[in-house]
């Protein structure tokens, strides 16, 4: 499975879908249970805790995009099958190295036909549709929904540090697409979508971080050295207590993000998402690294599960833009505009 080319574990996916997980934040008219965004967040946390190799986050992000910005006919076309798990969706935003930026988007849509190449598309080989960021004839950026079964789409599975979350390159060549017209236009719309994705991802990160801390604590209680459990040494217990602190701060920020995602204030959502993302990325990366360290040599082996979390932690910390990117987003929001103007000219 770590090779990154394994097929979707369809039994697990079918079971998750049958339990209603995929439709939890989708209105009842499309077959969802409409329990809400916060319930979706908790499910993401569970997926993160168990490292479930399913496209839950990817498909959820696509559903959020269609719910946020899809015209009624696009919602009619896609939401029912996404909600019952028979279709899988994903986001295709990025094209090259470097953090998210409008200038980094070259994909172009002319007359409802898409040309371009997207990389690091999560679950891109299994997905049935992608939400693609692309420029139009007037250079304005928009979000487009693209059916990936069209013969003009070619896909390549990309080698990836976390093979359990496959990444793909998607090539579009005059591929039919439909613009999501109901949301915010331009790069602001992409940012709003990334913000919702960041909140969902934060919960997956917190689930993963908590799993690492639980593993490390279990091991620290069982593992003896110098005649005592290693968890009795302050070098270990203080390290683990600090992880607990990082996780709880991230949980608090993410909870606020989940609430802000259901409000209508875009600035508030962006600010909350940036806080959630930065603290959750750091909490998961620290937890994954220190989990290996607490396990010592065994944590460095293939047979231990420690490395699976280490891989996932880094993938999730970069896949929506680095913490540095989100720090810049946040600084632009919270440092007063009168001071931001001093930024001009640099």
């Amino acid at each position, binding site marked *: 499975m770590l090779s990154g080319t394994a097929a979707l574990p369809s039994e697990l996916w079918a079971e998750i879908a049958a339990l209603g997980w995929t439709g939890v934040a989708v209105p009842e008219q499309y077959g969802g249970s409409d329990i809400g965004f916060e319930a979706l967040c908790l499910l993401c946390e569970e997926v993160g805790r168990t490292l479930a190799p399913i496209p839950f986050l990817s498909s959820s992000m696509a559903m959020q995009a269609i719910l946020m910005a899809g015209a009624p006919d696009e919602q009619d076309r896609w939401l029912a099958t996404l909600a019952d798990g028979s279709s899988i969706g994903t986001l295709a935003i990025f094209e090259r190295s470097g953090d998210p930026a409008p200038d980094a988007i070259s994909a172009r849509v002319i007359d409802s036909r898409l040309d371009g190449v997207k990389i690091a598309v999560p679950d891109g080989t299994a997905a049935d549709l992608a939400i693609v960021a692309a420029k139009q004839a007037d250079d304005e950026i928009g979000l487009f929904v693209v059916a990936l079964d069209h013969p003009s789409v070619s896909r390549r599975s990309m080698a990836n540090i976390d093979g359990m979350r496959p990444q793909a390159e998607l090539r579009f060549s005059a591929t039919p697409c439909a613009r999501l017209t109901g949301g915010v236009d331009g790069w602001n719309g992409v940012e709003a979508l990334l913000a919702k994705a960041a909140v969902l991802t934060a919960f997956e990160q917190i689930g993963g971080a908590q799993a690492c*801390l639980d593993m490390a*604590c279990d091991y*620290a*209680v069982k593992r003896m050295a110098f005649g*005592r*459990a290693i*968890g*009795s*040494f*302050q070098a*270990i*217990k*203080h390290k*683990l*207590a*600090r992880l*607990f*602190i990082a996780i*709880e*701060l*991230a*949980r*608090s*920020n993410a*909870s*606020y993000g989940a*609430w802000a995602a259901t409000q209508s204030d875009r600035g508030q959502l962006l600010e*909350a998402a*940036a*806080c959630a993302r*930065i*603290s959750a990325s750091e909490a998961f990366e620290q937890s994954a690294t220190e989990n290996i360290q607490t396990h010592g040599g065994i944590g460095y082996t293939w047979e231990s599960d420690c490395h699976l979390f280490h891989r996932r932690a880094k993938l999730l910390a970069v896949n929506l833009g680095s913490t*540095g990117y989100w*720090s*810049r987003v*946040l*600084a632009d929001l*919270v*440092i*007063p505009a009168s*001071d*931001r103007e*001093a*930024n001009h000219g*640099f």
Partner: protein
Amino acid sequence: MDFEDTATEAAFRAEVRHFLEANATRRQAGQAESEQLDVQASRAWQARKAQAGLAGILIPTEFGGRGGLPIEQVIYDQEEAQFRTPPGRLFMITFGMCIPTMIEFARPEDGKRHARAAIQGDEVWCQLFSEPAGGSDLAALRTRAERQGDEWIVNGQKIWTSYAHHSDYGLLLARTDFDAPKHGGLTAFFVDMKSPGIEVRPIKQIDGSSHFNEVFLTDVVIPDTQRLGAVGDGWKVALFTLMNERVAVGRVDGPDFAMLVAGLRDVERDGRPALAHPTVRDWLARSYVLSAGQQHTMSRVVTALSKGRQPGPEASVLKLVGARQLIDTAATMLDFMGPAGAISDVDERSDGYFQDLFLRATGERIAGGTEEIMLNVLAERVLKLPGDMRADKGIPFRTIGTQAAAGGRP
């Protein structure tokens, strides 16, 4: 998690805000507050709150308090923080630790008398716990209380006693049995700070101010009626007091985000305004994330209180995070100022706030439980990790080693 008040909470918040609007002025964002403690003003402010029924919110009505809910105390604190009022810290130990302990362990008539007096601002209390031999290791204390009939004679020394020099009464923890194991030989009392034999010497602190003291006790006489709990049960009383301390000292006061921005407004870095510099902006954003994390953690605590539940272990992270952040904030702000960072009076607009904070902040990781002890508590109580090996358990107190091995470092 809830980010909005219930109807009852909103009504209480309105009552508090009405009182504050009528009796105090609003704080300006980005403006530093004076750290000076005016004892008379603090006592007068306490009395004014009492008149409005907003003092002793958590104290039961039969003890003269409001008999309110923890959520109401939180709401009051949130609102008062937005106004310029005499610092509440003079009474922090009184209400955070001493009065709850009196209500729990003193004779009911004493509990009532002192709770009422404190609520009115007539009594300030201190906590005579720490000693030169026992800070983090509180149960190592050596102050001796010997029974003589209906009285106890106390000899010893306390240290780090906040506001002892302004206090009317103190909670005292003393050793009544040197042959019992460490935690089993302690007994708790309350004592009139004007008793003969009590001498209070202020300690000059790192920033030149004096909030805490050494307290010397020489043949101090305490009636047995002022004993709290059974003889030998002092540790149980102390744990009750300290449990309240966690709540009382849990929050760390520091500069808000607007003050950081204001402090950097006139600073240049690499030939451009510091607020336009990527390094500074990244640090500010990360500071914002940390503050937001604490604020929303507080919301989780408040939500639990609002629903009548005990807050979970997340409450214990606030002091640890806040103290570290305070030190980092002061040190980094001085760094950003460059050579002027070490100067408190660069020009007439300087208030030296961050220079003072740089000194003051170092105490936050020590006071109210050191960072190291709090990490131990977190690891052992929440993460269920085993305790450290100890050399002081199950043996008579007088046989516990007090000197490091001879020879010392080579």
